[in-house]
């Protein structure tokens, strides 16, 4: 289990959460927008697509191509979906963070 959790990097978790948040509308542009809106960081195209490919190779996301659209010059969108394995890996990673955070007070940060 520890191996799986450590294999999921911080940006991979961010991408998985963005895809989950978008539901059926998760493709390159919207994933990048959600990450930018929610984390105030703008991932480069290279960083985002290599991460998405890596997550797909690990079996944590699945992708399928939509229909070609004229506003994209007749190019299809590649839609992403988090797999059950991806949800489980994300849950484990988040639980690990939570266990590490339990009872910990970060200096200068307000706690609920």
């Amino acid at each position, binding site marked *: 289990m520890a191996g799986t959790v450590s294999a999921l990097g911080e940006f991979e978790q961010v991408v998985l959460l963005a895809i989950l948040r978008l539901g059926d509308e998760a*493709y*390159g*542009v919207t994933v*990048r927008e959600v990450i930018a809106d929610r984390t105030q960081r*703008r991932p*480069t*195209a*290279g*960083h985002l*697509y*290599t991460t998405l*490919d*890596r997550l797909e*190779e690990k079996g944590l996301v699945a992708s399928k*191509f939509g229909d070609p*659209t004229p*506003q*994209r*010059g007749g*190019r*299809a*969108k*590649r839609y992403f979906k988090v797999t059950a394995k991806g949800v489980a890996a994300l849950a484990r990673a988040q639980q690990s963070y939570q266990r590490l955070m339990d009872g910990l007070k970060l200096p200068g940060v307000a706690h609920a």
Partner: protein
Amino acid sequence: MRNARLAEWVLSLVTTPERASATVGDLLEDPLHAGALRFWAAVLFAAFSLLWRDMAANPKPMAKLAVYGVFLQLLLSFVTSAAVVLVYIVGAFVGSAIDPGPQWKWGPGMPLGLLTLGAIAGWAFGLVAQFQVGRVLAKRSPDRELAPCIATTLLAIAIPLLIVVLSGGRATFPTGQLIHEALYGPSIVLSVLSQVAALFVLLAGAARVRRQQLSMSR
């Protein structure tokens, strides 16, 4: 100018044509990449990131291919040197037949035209050799045709660097010549830059194989 077809062509060298098409579609749709400069920066950075991932995700086969690539480069550098010497010999033979004299004797005093011819021949043979090495490496790495070229270049830079560092920069050949001078010439920076330039020729050879593979799979 945002040339989507060219961008797709570049990306299809390092990923499937369908993914390349979808990526370019995203870049066209995303207002962040509206300018030509940003668009091309994103395309090239995405291509390099995917290429680097291909290499980093498969360290063992890439290391083997890099060793093979460096071996081929060394072998072909000997062949290239021999071909250049042959150019000089034939050139001097022809030249001395037309205009006999001592100027055709081997050495730096040879006519400038012959020296230039030899230099151009050496350069051209070197390009062809690198191109062929790129093709050979690509054929041995299906679906990741370009990645071994990066690995080979990194190894070709690392080996002499390691020798120089381990020898403290003072080690010499039995002839008395400093090893680092023989490996790098007068400038390490120039040597590394020439390796990077050679990388583009390697990549061109690999790209040709990649395009052939793609056209056969259609």
